[in-house]
């Protein structure tokens, strides 16, 4: 499975699709406490505490390959 999810707060989940990641590292610059690129050059989650919701949304919107999505419960 190329999709991974984390729950940031109750009702706010972030999903990454590693199968789409193009390693722009925009997300790791915009939300550096949440995203990193792993040794294969694909997006991965850090342990947290995570960035705030605004940063997470900006990271999702900035992703060149739409590999990050925000899921609100």
């Amino acid at each position: 499975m190329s999709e991974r999810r984390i729950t940031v707060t109750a009702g706010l989940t972030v999903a990454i699709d590693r199968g789409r990641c193009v390693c722009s590292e925009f997300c790791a610059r915009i939300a550096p406490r949440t995203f990193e690129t792993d040794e294969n050059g694909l997006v991965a989650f850090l342990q947290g505490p995570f960035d705030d919701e605004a940063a997470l949304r900006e990271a999702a919107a900035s992703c060149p390959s739409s590999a990050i999505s925000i899921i609100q419960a």
Partner: protein
Amino acid sequence: MSHAAEISQSPNAGVGRYDWERQTTQRTGAGAVDDPYPVIDAARAEGGVLETSLFGLFNLPDPMAEQWPGARRFTAISYAAAEAVLRDNTTFTNAGIRRMTEHVFGPYSLMGSDDPEHRQFRLLVQPAFGKKAMGLWQHWVKPRLDELIDGFVADGKAELYFDYCAKFPVFVIAMTLGVAREDLDKFHEWAAMLQIGAAPPDEARKARHQVEDYMRKVIADRRANPQDDLISLLIGSEIDEGDAGKRRITEEQILGLICNLLPAGAGTTYRSLGIILVTLLERPELLARVYKERDLIPAIIEEALRWNGPVLSAPFRYVTADVEIEGVKIPKGALIEPAIGAANREPERFEHAGEFDPFRAPKPTLSFSFGAHFCVGGQVARMELRAALNALLDRLPNLRFDPDMPKPQLTGLLYRMPTGVPVVWG
């Protein structure tokens, strides 16, 4: 020892030390257009999508017209329009690039394919550009930079564009691919010929065959004697397809990747470094500050790539369905050029967009394109640019333009570059 006097700066002559280099840069607009941005900024009043080719906007003959007779042509110059084109790789496909380049680049081209086929290919090669592989690139970087500086440090002056910038990224790619040092000059020429639009098709095809013949021997050698290098890593690259097992990269895919990688890495990083150096040399106060505050370098690189990047437009996209962007109807069968350099100067997205300001708040740009074809080598390029700037500042104090040489300028349309970087120091 400087060869700068031999370098032609006459109008429309292209930029380069060698005939092949002057010819390839001339074909992409060097000498014909020095500053494209006033024309682009004036055109913004007409909207974010213009019905013209990029070259047409400058009243220059369009290099693609012959291969696309009758095709309607558009250029996206607003940030939103360029991003929309690059994001939707189904409506705006790279299949047209394949049609134009298949006879030159062969069937496996990252740039000439679309998802899902492109994605499968990209997943095989992306690890070669990620953190794990960075050391394989870095291994060649600092020794090469120091070797080049050793070559001219005693002279007190140098032509940095041709004796430093030009001789560095192509060297790193060639060495990571297992090319012998004595074959480096040949490789540099082949790399330039493989840039889209930079050479006539038969010359590009010949260059491709030369690269392929050479690399088949290297690959055979590495299969027998694997080493800790990038070509060995690529040969072993595979993707896990779950129940279907693992799929190993094919030799044809490796060769296809190399023919894409050579011009991309060798051309863009080379020209970017020259542009960044001219930009800093034109701002002596900033340059003096960078000597002491090296942590400004990453922001200077990002801003230079935004303000005057090495590529004004990402490769054109072929339109597969009638579509409308920013009120402009674009028919199926048209070609559209996503002018990333124009987008990066859009006043609505970037305050004082026409100014070089490394202290502006960081914001994503289209410098490395966008969408599924986002530049796979971006992290390697940034690492190389940082290293190349630091190595110069470490060893050449008080760098400034050579007062005895004509002041260089930035030039070019599709591909941007400086006419040279003549400097003195000390």
